[in-house]
């Protein structure tokens, strides 16, 4: 896929990495839902295949001003969300990331040896998630961070998406995740110039 | 519709094209008249289906459907589910041969039982694929000649044993599973009626001689099936939730040879020494079954002698279980 194509449809592509059980696909769905709440067209889908707990997982989100018709895979993300920094050692997580693209990483600090072309947001999302949710779930924290860093989706929309999508899991879960997404958002707001 | 007989429905009526003396036709007539016309019948592919629905002429006088060979139990599951959701209590009965039960149909049958569908599954066991010309099935007994288990220099017929399907069925925590045969109508009637009083999956395996495949005189279908019981080769048992709850005691044990002699499918066993070994093997199998079910000593309501008894003015006909169900 070429950059020209992207301009035609004004797409924003996001790729999410994690391990089975970390809520990676859920995060993609939440992100697409939030974009949809904000009035965009959106689409989310997992890297197709069977799901195995602990195995590397990928999911994708397309956000666009216009109707998304493509149902093929996504190769040139504008942002990559990494839920487990350990995966950096074994998986080509940054492959296809557009120059100047954003990396949202679940880590206390930026690992060494990463290309300076990319923008970075690092935060200990598992710890934050554990504090709010009771389990080390980084996904909604990282979504908050992504929203803060890119402004592709609003915090309100993310909160709304969480309320809708996780409603079946109970109010407590919704509340905890909203707190988590808020903290991730707050921590990642760019410093005022 | 045919109403010639004032004393029964003839759910399976005349004009069907079964061979002369067909044990399966007889068994099916007994079962379906006991269950009655207020039921839905599902038939697996096989002789019964072919000879009763031949070319735009049907011998059935109740709702009846045939789909394919293996799926009768699954079709019945669907019919039963549909009736359940509609709040109807119409009984559902599957009829299949031994192929459609022991072999190709076993998976669907197992699923039907495991899911607890309220269906009576009746297997007319004639111990081979008769519809296609007498090929061996999982039900074919040891040493039987079929067209795919022929005797020869290195063979005395089927090498393997008859599959113990009733135990397989019973192992499903099955509410009711029983064996029966056409020779003992009162016993068969009691079992069908009992089955119809029970809710959930129920199974009847009815030994139904095939004059063509067993190569016996067509007049001997009943006699031969009786001998199968009297020799101990085909024990008549009832199992409820896996427990043995009923047995037909043998008034006396007859030697298997009495059963084997009239049947051409065992003829080769009488021809040479190797056959003689198999005769002793078959006797040993009968003895083992007698021991397993304690057929000679068990305390039962009936035995092979008393269950045979004819009575003046019959033993009751076909007044029937659908009525029993309505009461329940």
């Amino acid at each position, binding site marked *: *896929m070429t950059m020209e194509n992207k301009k035609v449809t004004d797409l924003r592509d996001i790729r999410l990495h994690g391990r089975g059980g970390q809520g990676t696909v859920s995060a993609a769905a939440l992100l697409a839902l939030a974009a949809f709440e904000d009035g965009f067209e959106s689409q989310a889908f997992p890297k*197709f295949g069977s799901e195995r707990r602990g195995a590397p997982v990928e999911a994708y989100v397309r956000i666009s001003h216009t109707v998304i018709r493509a*149902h093929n895979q996504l190769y040139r993300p504008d942002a990559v969300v990494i839920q487990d920094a350990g995966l950096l050692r074994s998986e080509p997580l940054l492959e296809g990331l557009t120059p100047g693209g954003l990396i949202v990483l679940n880590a206390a600090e930026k690992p060494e040896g990463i290309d300076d072309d990319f923008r970075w947001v690092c935060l200990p999302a598992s710890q934050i998630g554990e504090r709010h949710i009771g389990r080390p779930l980084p996904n909604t924290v990282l979504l908050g961070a992504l929203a803060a860093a890119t402004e592709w989706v609003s915090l309100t929309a993310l909160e709304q998406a969480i309320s809708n999508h996780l409603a079946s899991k109970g109010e407590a879960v919704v509340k905890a995740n909203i707190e988590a997404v808020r903290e991730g958002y707050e921590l990642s707001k760019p410093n005022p110039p | 519709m045919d109403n010639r007989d004032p004393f029964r429905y003839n759910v399976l009526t005349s004009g069907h094209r079964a061979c002369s003396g067909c044990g399966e036709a007889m068994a099916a007539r007994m079962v379906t008249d006991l269950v009655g016309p207020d039921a839905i019948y599902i038939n697996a592919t096989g002789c019964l289906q072919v000879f009763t629905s031949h070319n735009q002429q049907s011998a059935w006088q109740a709702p009846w459907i045939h789909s394919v060979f293996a799926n009768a139990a699954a*079709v019945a599951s669907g019919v039963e589910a549909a009736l359940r959701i509609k709040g109807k209590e119409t009984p559902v009965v599957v009829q299949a041969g031994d192929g459609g039960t022991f072999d190709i149909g076993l998976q669907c049958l197992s699923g039907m039982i495991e899911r607890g569908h309220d269906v009576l599954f009746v297997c007319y066991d004639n111990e081979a694929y008769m519809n296609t010309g007498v090929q061996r099935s999982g039900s074919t007994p040891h040493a039987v000649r079929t067209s795919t288990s022929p005797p020869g220099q290195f063979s005395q017929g089927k090498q393997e044993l008859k599959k113990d399907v009733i135990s397989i069925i019973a192992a499903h925590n099955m509410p009711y599973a029983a064996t029966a045969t056409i020779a003992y109508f009162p016993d068969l009637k009691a079992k069908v009626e009992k089955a119809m009083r029970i809710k959930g999956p129920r199974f009847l395996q009815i030994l139904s001689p095939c004059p063509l495949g067993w190569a016996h005189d067509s007049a001997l279908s009943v006699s031969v099936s009786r001998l199968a019981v009297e020799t101990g080769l085909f024990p008549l048992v009832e199992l409820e939730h896996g427990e043995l709850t009923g047995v037909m005691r043998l008034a006396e044990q007859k030697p298997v040879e009495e059963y084997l002699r009239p049947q051409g499918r065992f003829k080769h066993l009488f021809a040479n020494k190797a056959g003689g070994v198999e005769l002793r093997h078959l006797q040993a199998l009968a003895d083992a079954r007698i021991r397993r079910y304690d057929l000679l000593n068990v305390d039962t309501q009936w035995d092979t002698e008393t269950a045979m008894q004819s009575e003046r003015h019959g033993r009751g006909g076909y007044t029937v279980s659908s009525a029993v169900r309505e009461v329940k």
Partner: protein
Amino acid sequence: MKQLLEGSLAVAEAVRLCLPQVVAAYPITPQTHIIERLAQHVANGELEAEFINAESEFGAASIVLGAVAAGARSFTATASQGLLLMTEVLYNIAGLRLPVVMICANRAVGAPINIFSDHQDSMSVRDAGWVQLYVETNQEAVDTLIQAYRIAEACGLPVMVCMDGFLLTHTFEPVDLPTQAMVDGFLPPFQFSRTLDPVRPMTLGGASEADNFQEYRAAQQAAMEDAMPVIEAFDAEFNEQFGREHGGLLQPCHLDGAETVLLGMGSLMGVVRDVVDKLRDQGQAVGALRLRCFRPFPAQALARYLASAKRIIVLEKAISIGAGGIVAAELRAALHQAGITTPVESVIGGLGGRDLTPDVIEALFQKSSENEAGATFRFAPDHKSLTRQNEEAMNNG
């Protein structure tokens, strides 16, 4: 109101709205989310139906066969190996003329085992006597499922709604779910004249002989032909009531003045549309035509749409091994019958989940030496090598 829903969940909602009384299925990727959701609906009391966990797809198909014969609207879903395991029963359902509706979450057929999307499964049972509708989006899957019951029950034909596994089933997209009242207004309650019932006993599925079997097949063929205007009419009626239509049998895209037309089925047409838009912007006279209804095969309508094309490309995600493209072959026959001599380029791609990217589609529209060699068919180029070539070309200047 539009919602962002996973495709499986969206069609599960559509199934629920059609109020089937019996749902039977056996799990197989990528169909599982559909039946899981339906099981949950039944468990929650949101759908008053019997949910039957079949022991196999063969059993599942047989269960819905029985349920429909007993007068209950029913549903099943499967894919791939599961569909092939159903094959015998699929023929039987069609032969018994039972209006069963199912979803095939299209997936490749092994070996080697592969869980990803292509159309080999449903194409393999194309002769079984089922109406086959291939959908492009999850919205269309929802709408088509509702139409499918109407078609099946009006025509006495079973209908298979084919939606690409993963590409649709596992993708979250905005979908407008109709209300129960709207669906009820479109889909009348199920009435089946041949219901198994002691009140009116009948024999179904009897044996047939040489002197009448052919007549059964002729009747099925006639019913299929009669179904074509019905499918179109119901899509139009659906449009009136719901404000959405999906082309009936065929859906054109920029066919006006198109010299090169690409014909395809299913979700791949989204990327094709993007590419056609782009090439049109560049001034190229390209267009596309989506075959929504593969069975019955709309030969005459296809010939009408393609009469003025100068070049026809058929891209399909299945292969008749030993022959080539299936849709292409049927299209060639249809055009030949209509006296149209335009050559049909047969391209097979997307097998086993191989991605059909815009680059690939664009490449197909370009004339290549391979096209002109007059091959019966060819495989689509691989997207990765194409991307590499493109990048190299850009880098080189």
